[in-house]
Each structure stands twice: as structure tokens, then as C-alpha cells.
């Protein structure tokens, strides 16, 4: 028990001893530790300084706020004292910076122009102009109020006690009203409201939070040393108020000393600009953002439609023109030019006997196309056209038969000399080369008035053809039975005559055959000459068979040499003779043979 009272004094004595021990070990006021730490301060701080800065910056982001003015003033000092060094470091950057700034300017300019155009020339723009005029605010302000849910136009940082403006930032660099006066008046009003509505002195002073007009709000956040005021168009959301509050708190913590010792010099607050600028927030109306540029789409659509229609029109007129070109393939039609436009102009030359153009268009189903035909008549020498015209001329002479072989007109029948003259003139006018392109060997020209019975005419034709055949002969080279080109031509001619003869003979009821007689000159042996002459006749016969004369209608014979002194030297020939009979009469007196065929 006796110890009990001494216990407190014991413990205080312990405390004292401990304190003394502490002083011995650690030094007065922890001097030893402080000295030790100070001695190694550099190493200790160096170890953690980067991490510490990083952690603090992540924590409340205050590092950059502190560093910014320091960096700015360092750069400032560097610019003023060592500008050449800075210039050489910045030199490589300047070009791209200028380019960027120019392009940014252009983009901004385009955007503004576009907006101006959009707002000036649309119905909406006009409506806005009228409404802005009615509510007597500037058009720009009205557009902002319509386009933005809210937009902070102006932020003021005001010294609470004096009402003096510390710093202000504007959205578009042009201040509306005098920021100094606004600051003072606002703080006067705030003081007035605060004092007027405080019920008793103990109660916290009331502060203004918001002042609202029709389309403008002042958001006021008041701190112990300063207030921040944002002039906002539209309806500011709570997030903005929160942001202002955070900014105000941050300024208070960073500029506490400056605010407390403020004596009218606002330069210390120049660096708050960054933070105040972050308060210039805005939000566009969603419809304004998501609206589709329908006017542009309509325009693009219309342009595409026009382009599509134009190319369809071009393609169509091209294909019509291509089709029209084929009209040239018709005999008697010649295109001179095709001009494509709204209507296609077709310039052409057309023979009056050629196919009518309208008819051709109908065949090609082009009659509904806008085609203008400019047609000039001409006489075509196209064989088809010539034949057509010749047929028309020949219609007047029903007794004449005609056919075309290649470009030659074969005429068959009888005409009076006058008729022939007439026909020749007509044919010449129609483009028939009468001198070279008419075969008139079967044409009998008789004086008018001696008109023959058709049978007599036929007989006459038969006789004349027969005498022509009889007059034909082939001349061979010495000792040869070969047919040369000239001989073949004669044989071809002969074939035609035989065919004509067959035609006449059929109509007259005659039968006929062809005698082919080979002869030779009188040089060499008789036997050889006999063979040679036979060979010559056979060559001619063979050629005629090939030309289409039936073999059974021919008879060959080699006469051998002809011992007639006047001609015997050169008689290397084949001669022809036509034998014919009237089936119910005797053979013709001209037949040199004894036997009948």
C-alpha cells in the first residue's frame, strides 16, 4: 500500500529518465536523427522523387498546376535570355506547326462558313433570325442558345473581399460587357443578398448561387477568399456546377497565400487561366449533332439521277446511231452523216427504187425514236438497183426473155430496130453499160411489120445458133492435142450455144447432136496424123463433157491429114458441126453423115 502513493512520482521519474536517455541518444529535439537525415537528404529524396511526383499527380493532379507556372516562367526566361538556342531547337518544328495551324484555320473557317450558310439560307436560319430580332438578342447568341444545351461563355475569378476581378476567360476572346464592373457589381449584389436575408448574425452568411434571365444564367460558386462565376447560355447541368466547385477549391488550395495577401495586384493569378478555360464547357443539342445532312443527300441523289439519265440517253442514242449505220447495207442507200443530239439527224442519199426509210425503221422498231431523216435522191449503180430498173424497162417488151449472169444482161427474143434503139436508150439511162454488158447474141432484130410467128422466130434462132456453132473451130499447135486457154474460152462459148440450141430444139421438137472433127496438117506420117487428129477431137469432147454437155450427144472423129495443098500446111484443127433431124422427117440435108443418129 505504501508504494501506492509513490507510483505516480515513480512513473514521472521514469518518464524523465526516458526523456534524458532519448536526448542522449537522439539529441535535443531529435537533432541527431534530423542531422543524419539531412546529411543523406539528397540520396533519400533522389530515390523516391520521381515516384512521389507521379503518385501525387495521380492522386489529385496538383503537380501540373504547380509545375505549369514554373515551366512557363523558365521558358519565358529562356526566350528572353537565350533565344538563339531556343530558335535552333524549335526550328525543325516550326514548319509543321505552321502547316498545322494553317490547316486548322482553314478547317475552322470552312466550318464557320458552312454554319453561316446553313443558318443563313435555310428556313430554320430565317426563323431564328426573326426570333432573335424579336427577343432583341444578337443572332449569334440566339444560334448558340438554339444549338447548345448549354455553353459557358465567360468565366470570372473574383476576389471575395474586394470584389476585384482576378482573372477572366472568354469563349471567343471578345468580352461581353466589362468584366471588372461585372465582378464588382456581382460581389455587391452577393453582399446585399447575403446581408439582407441572413436572419441573425450567427447564421452562416447566405450566398448567391444562380442568377437567371430568359436565356442566360450566372452560376456562382463562393469560397472563403474568392468566387468563381460562369456566364452560361442555355440550361447548365449539375456537372458544370460541380466542375466549378472543384476548380474553385483547387484555386483556393494552390493560391491560398496569394488570395489572403491580395492587395490589388492580379498578376499572381495569370496562371489560373488553364483551369478557368477548362470551365468553358458546352454540350450540343443531340438533334443538332445527329441530324443527317439530308439536303446534301438530296443534292447528291439528284446529281446521280441526272448523271444516270444523261448516260442512259447517251448510250441509247449511241446504240440507235449504231443501228442506223446498218441502213447503209441496203442497196441504193448511202449515209452521208449521222448527227447525235436530242434528236438524231440522219443525212443520206437514197435511190428512189431503194427500200423506203420509214419501212426500214419500222422493221428495226425505231419508228418511235426521235430521228430526223434528211434524204437526197440519187441514182445508184448498185447491181441490185440496176437490175430492178432494167426489169422495169424490159416489162414493156414482153416478147423478150432476159436473165443476168454476173453483171451481164442476156437478152433473148426479137425486137424491131426502133424498139431496140428505145430499149438501149432506156437501159443506158438506168445505168446498164449497154455496149459491154449486154449479151444480145440471142436477140433478133427485124424490121417492123415483118413480125414473125413465134415458131418461125424460134426456128430462126435455132438456125442462127447452129450456124454459129458450125463456124467454130479450135487451132492447135504443131503436133499437140493440148487445149490452151483460148481454146477453152471458145469451148465455153460453144457450151452456151449448145444450151441455147437445146432450148430452141426442144421447143421446135427437133433432135440434134454435135459432130467433133479433128484434123491435122500433112506433115509427118499418115498414121500418126490420124491418131493425132483423133486425139484432138477427144480432147475437145472431154472438155465439153466437163462443161456439162452430155457425152451421148457428141460424136468424135479424127480425119487425119487433109491433103489440100492450099490449106494442108496449117490445118491443125478441131471443127464442129451440128446434126439435127425432125423426128418424123428425114435427117437434115446438111447432115454430112450417111447414117442417122
Amino acid at each position, binding site marked *: 500500500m505504501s508504494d501506492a502513493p509513490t507510483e505516480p512520482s515513480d512513473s514521472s521519474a521514469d518518464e524523465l529518465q526516458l526523456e534524458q536517455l532519448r536526448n542522449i541518444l537522439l539529441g535535443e529535439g531529435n537533432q541527431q536523427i534530423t542531422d543524419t537525415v539531412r546529411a543523406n537528404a539528397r540520396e533519400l529524396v533522389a530515390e523516391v522523387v520521381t515516384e512521389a511526383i507521379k503518385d501525387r499527380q495521380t492522386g489529385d493532379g496538383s503537380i501540373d498546376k504547380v509545375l505549369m507556372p514554373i515551366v512557363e516562367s523558365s521558358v519565358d526566361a529562356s526566350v528572353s535570355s537565350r533565344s538563339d538556342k531556343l530558335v535552333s531547337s524549335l526550328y525543325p518544328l516550326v514548319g509543321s506547326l505552321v502547316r498545322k495551324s494553317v490547316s486548322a484555320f482553314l478547317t475552322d473557317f470552312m466550318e464557320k462558313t458552312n454554319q453561316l450558310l446553313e443558318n443563313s439560307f435555310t428556313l430554320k436560319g430565317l426563323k431564328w433570325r426573326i426570333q432573335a430580332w424579336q427577343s432583341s438578342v444578337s443572332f449569334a447568341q440566339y444560334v448558340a442558345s438554339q444549338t447548345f444545351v448549354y455553353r459557358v461563355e465567360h468565366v470570372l475569378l473574383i476576389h471575395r473581399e*474586394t470584389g*476585384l476581378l482576378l482573372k477572366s476567360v472568354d469563349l471567343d476572346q471578345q468580352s461581353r460587357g*466589362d468584366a471588372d464592373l461585372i465582378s*464588382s457589381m456581382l460581389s455587391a449584389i452577393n*453582399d*446585399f443578398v*447575403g446581408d439582407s436575408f441572413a436572419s441573425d448574425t450567427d447564421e452562416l452568411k447566405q450566398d448567391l448561387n444562380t442568377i437567371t434571365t430568359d436565356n442566360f444564367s450566372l452560376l456562382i460558386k463562393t469560397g472563403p477568399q474568392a468566387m468563381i462565376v460562369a456566364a452560361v447560355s442555355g440550361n447548365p447541368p449539375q456537372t458544370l456546377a460541380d466542375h466549378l466547385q472543384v476548380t474553385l477549391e483547387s484555386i483556393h488550395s494552390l493560391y491560398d497565400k496569394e488570395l489572403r495577401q491580395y492587395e*490589388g*495586384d*492580379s498578376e499572381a493569378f495569370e496562371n489560373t487561366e488553364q483551369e478557368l478555360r477548362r470551365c468553358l464547357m458546352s454540350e450540343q443539342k443531340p438533334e443538332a449533332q445527329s441530324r443527317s445532312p439530308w439536303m446534301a443527300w438530296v443534292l447528291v441523289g439528284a446529281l446521280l439521277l441526272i448523271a444516270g439519265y444523261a448516260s442512259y440517253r447517251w448510250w441509247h442514242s449511241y446504240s440507235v446511231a449504231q443501228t442506223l449505220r446498218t441502213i447503209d447495207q441496203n442497196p441504193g442507200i448511202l449515209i452521208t452523216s449521222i448527227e447525235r443530239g436530242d434528236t438524231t439527224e440522219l443525212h443520206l442519199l437514197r435511190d428512189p427504187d431503194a427500200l423506203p426509210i420509214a419501212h426500214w425503221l419500222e422493221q428495226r422498231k425505231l419508228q418511235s425514236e426521235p430521228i430526223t431523216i434528211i434524204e437526197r435522191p440519187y441514182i445508184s449503180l448498185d447491181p441490185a438497183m440496176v437490175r430492178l430498173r432494167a426489169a422495169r424497162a424490159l416489162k414493156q417488151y414482153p416478147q423478150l426473155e432476159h436473165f443476168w449472169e454476173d453483171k451481164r444482161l442476156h437478152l433473148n427474143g426479137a425486137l424491131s430496130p426502133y424498139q431496140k434503139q428505145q430499149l438501149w436508150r432506156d437501159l443506158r439511162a438506168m445505168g446498164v453499160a449497154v455496149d459491154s454488158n449486154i449479151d444480145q447474141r440471142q436477140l433478133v432484130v427485124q424490121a417492123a411489120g415483118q413480125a414473125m410467128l413465134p415458131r418461125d422466130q424460134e426456128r430462126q434462132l435455132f438456125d442462127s445458133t447452129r450456124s454459129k456453132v458450125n463456124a467454130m473451130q479450135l487451132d492447135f499447135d504443131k503436133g499437140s492435142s493440148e487445149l490452151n486457154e483460148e481454146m477453152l474460152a471458145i469451148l465455153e462459148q460453144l457450151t452456151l450455144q449448145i444450151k441455147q440450141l437445146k432450148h430452141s430444139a426442144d421447143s421446135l421438137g427437133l433432135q440434134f447432136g454435135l459432130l467433133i472433127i479433128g484434123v491435122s496438117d500433112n506433115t509427118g506420117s499418115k498414121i500418126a496424123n490420124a491418131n493425132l487428129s483423133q486425139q484432138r477431137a477427144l480432147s475437145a469432147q472431154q472438155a465439153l463433157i466437163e462443161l456439162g454437155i452430155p457425152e451421148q450427144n457428141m460424136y468424135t472423129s479424127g480425119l487425119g491429114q487433109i491433103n489440100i495443098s492450099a490449106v494442108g500446111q496449117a490445118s491443125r484443127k478441131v471443127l464442129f458441126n451440128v446434126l439435127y433431124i425432125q423426128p418424123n422427117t428425114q435427117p437434115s440435108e446438111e447432115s454430112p453423115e450417111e447414117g442417122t443418129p
Partner: protein
Amino acid sequence: MIQKKICLLGASGVGKTSLIRQFVESIFSDKYLTTIGVKVDKKSVEINGQEVKLMLWDIEGNDRYHMFQEKYLRGASAYIIVVDQTRSPSLIEGIDIHTLLQQNHDCPTVLAINKSDLTENWHWGEKELNDYKSLFDLSYHTSAKTGDNVETMFSELAERLLQESVQ
């Protein structure tokens, strides 16, 4: 740039608003418009190459029975008490205001005896007046109408404030 808040106080009708108008806009009007509450104006003056922006708080004129609007005086760098030399009571009121202010505020004070263009019409003798003047740091006989001493008063006040802030 340095900014200073300066309050103008005094009985109603002594010419506070007119003094400010003369100083800021160089305009004087005979028409009397009473100020309600407070009106703020500003003007920059240059003192020895340094610009000082004066924020001039024109505070509603007080009469004897009117509660003094102290709320507007917070943070002021100086006060100008304006009195009217044609009305004796205006000086008493001015001195009352000054006495009140001295209790709470320690800053330069100026006495502006206004309407110097008019004939003096009060019973204060030279000595009495000088005694009152000695209560103030600066004192001027001003005329808002002719502009007499107006510019001088504000400039000298600004200069004094600048000196103070340098110290």
C-alpha cells in the same frame, strides 16, 4: 496592373455620383438622380509609369436615420467622404460615417468638400474645418461641376495607395 477598390460615402445629394461621373466621363449634369444601393465605375490612372485601376464604388447616400451599408465597404483600399459646403449637416454626417469606419477599417481616408463652385454657405469656421480635415489623410475642395481638384484628388489618392502597397 494594380487594382484598388475605393468607396465614396456621404449624405445624399452631396455629389458623390457627380464626382465620379466628372472623373470617369468628364461630364456634369445638374439633373439629380438618387443612387439606389451601389453603382460601380472604373478608371485607370497612370502614376509614375505604373497603371492603377480604380474601382469606384458609389454608395447610396446616407441620412442620419439610415442604417449604414457597411457590407459594401469590405476590402476597400480607401474611402472618400464627400460633404457639401452649402449644407452644414452634411459635414456632421460625413464625420459620423468616418468615425464609424475608423472602428473597423484601417485605410487611407479622404475628405472631399464638394460644390466649391458655389458660394460657401455653412457656419463652420476656418479652425473648425481644419480640425475636421486633420482627421483625414487627405482633403480637397472639389467641384464636380467645373472639375476643379477632381482629377487631382483621385490621382493623389492613387499615388498614396501605390506607395502603401510598395511598402
